[in-house]
């Protein structure tokens, strides 16, 4: 690699244009990425966090050559993603979460053989490389089964093996742990950490704060197509300094009660997360204001579970950053 950085993004922008209707065509434009700039050092594990629709996947696709930027430039291992497409592709791997992206009616081994050919792994090395990767992702012994019979976790592991076939310098992981059970997710994190320790640059997008906190050297929080914050996990955590967090488990909280909480003195943000029948209310307040009593008063008459007041975590910092951007 000739460049100091593995990834350089400079004022990247991407607008999606769509046309619907024939007689009276209606054109719509969505600005998914609006001036994103950052650099990732060689061997760094860099996280891209953001809510759905924030522009994470578009940013990854601009960097891995699947999309052409509307404006701005990006380089991967010193090569321009728009003009030197093949040079970039030789050096990168791409893994995304979910069930798609594999040939279901072929075996895991056939999938790896095909992609090894596509990615130019020399025929003499293919057998050894595939065996190594099957061992790495724990699929050895199951490789001759058709992928359609694989569990979601197994598919995800096959995705990772596929992404590593040509030993890429830079690995793009787009929400790789989505839908994966906790044990498999922990193994996945270990694999990713080992890859980074061995010198592979990793750009990871994830919804899971604990994953980002545990793995990433630096994190960029993206919302509404722009980077809202960038730093190490501990730097980002400090964005929530001066706050206190009250968490309340509740059942059947009406929207009016959530609005009332938002208007309480000292409250900065509120969030509601549905977990089955349970709702988890998170109330951020100024650290010097004790809002717990006021919160419980507003929720009087509603069935409540655990109530907790605590110091902010990285997730709280993330909520604070994203809410400020909204």
């Amino acid at each position, binding site marked *: 690699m000739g460049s100091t950085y593995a990834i350089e993004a400079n004022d990247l922008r991407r607008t999606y244009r769509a046309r619907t209707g024939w007689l009276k065509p209606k054109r719509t434009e969505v600005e998914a990425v609006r001036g994103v700039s950052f650099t990732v050092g060689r061997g760094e594990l860099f996280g891209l966090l953001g809510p759905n629709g924030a522009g994470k996947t578009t940013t990854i696709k601009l960097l891995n050559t*699947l999309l*052409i930027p509307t404006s701005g430039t990006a380089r991967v291992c010193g090569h321009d993603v728009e003009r030197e497409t093949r*040079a970039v*592709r030789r050096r990168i791997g791409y893994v995304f979460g979910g069930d*798609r*992206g594999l040939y279901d*009616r*072929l075996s895991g081994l056939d999938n790896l053989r*095909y992609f090894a050919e*596509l990615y130019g792994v020399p025929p003499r090395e293919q057998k050894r490389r595939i065996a190594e990767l099957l061992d790495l992702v724990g699929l050895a012994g199951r490789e001759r089964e058709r992928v359609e019979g694989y569990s979601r976790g197994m598919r995800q592991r096959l995705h990772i093996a596929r992404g590593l076939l040509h030993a890429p310098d830079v690995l793009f992981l787009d929400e790789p742990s989505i839908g994966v059970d906790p044990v498999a997710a922990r193994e996945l994190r270990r694999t990713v950490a080992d890859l980074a320790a061995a010198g592979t640059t990793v750009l990871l997008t994830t919804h899971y704060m604990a994953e980002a906190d545990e793995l990433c050297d630096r994190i960029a929080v993206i919302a509404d197509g722009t980077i809202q914050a960038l730093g190490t996990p501990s730097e980002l955590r400090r964005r929530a300094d001066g706050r206190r967090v009250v968490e309340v488990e509740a059942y059947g909280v009406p929207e009016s009660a959530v609005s009332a909480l938002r208007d309480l003195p000292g409250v900065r943000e509120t969030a509601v997360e549905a977990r089955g029948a349970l709702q988890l209310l998170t109330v951020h307040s100024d650290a010097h204001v004790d809002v717990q009593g006021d919160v419980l008063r507003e929720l009087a008459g509603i069935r409540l579970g655990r109530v907790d007041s605590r110091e902010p975590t990285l997730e709280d910092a993330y909520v604070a950053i994203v809410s400020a951007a909204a």
Partner: protein
Amino acid sequence: MLAVGTLLHAKQMSRSPFEVVLALVVPVVQATLAVYLFRSGGEQHRLLEAAVGAGVMGVWSSVLFGSGGAIQNQRWQGTLEMIMLAPRRPVLVILPITVATGLTGIYALLATLVWGHFLYGIRLDFAHPVAFVVAAAVCVVALGLFGLLLAATFVLMRNANALANTLEYPVWLVSGMLVPITVLPSWTSPIAAVLPTTWGARALREATSGGPVWPSVAVCLAISLLCLTVGALALTHVERRARAAATLALA
């Protein structure tokens, strides 16, 4: 890379339950259609020729829907982005898919002949048996390369099947797979002359009933090589446009 890709794509396609059912039913229908058409026309002696024509229709349908459907399938499976992301020329990525559709289509030709023989007693009495095998192989490759040219268009279209549906019957007709080109209006002749399907079908017909097979094979190959060249250039252009228009994924 091309051989492994073609075989694995053929393996993936031939395991589709939908394809298996189609492969069982369509050749019987086509053999029946051919036999009754020619019997009612009083051309009992040309039944084998009719069955071969019907079989080529099957190869063409497989390539047409295979090329369009395969790329659409790659989109649905999320594999289109993954294969286009490979550090290869787009033509080398797509060609194995379209040749694989030709390869699976050859089954339609063979099955139509076998059903014609067992159900309707058509005698498999070829004028030039060796030339028939060569012509069939050329036909499969030629249609695969023609499919590549079509694929270049299909990659850009989110509803590639719409284009495939409109192309199936006109090409059957214009190429003279079942009805002789001579009975068609004269304005169709130039179109027929540039389609590799016309020359492939003609080569197979000549190998079946007698006639100069090799000139037709040569013209078929020449046109298909032209399809490969134009298809390769078009795919490079199309891939760039697809990256600009964000049509590689379903998103």
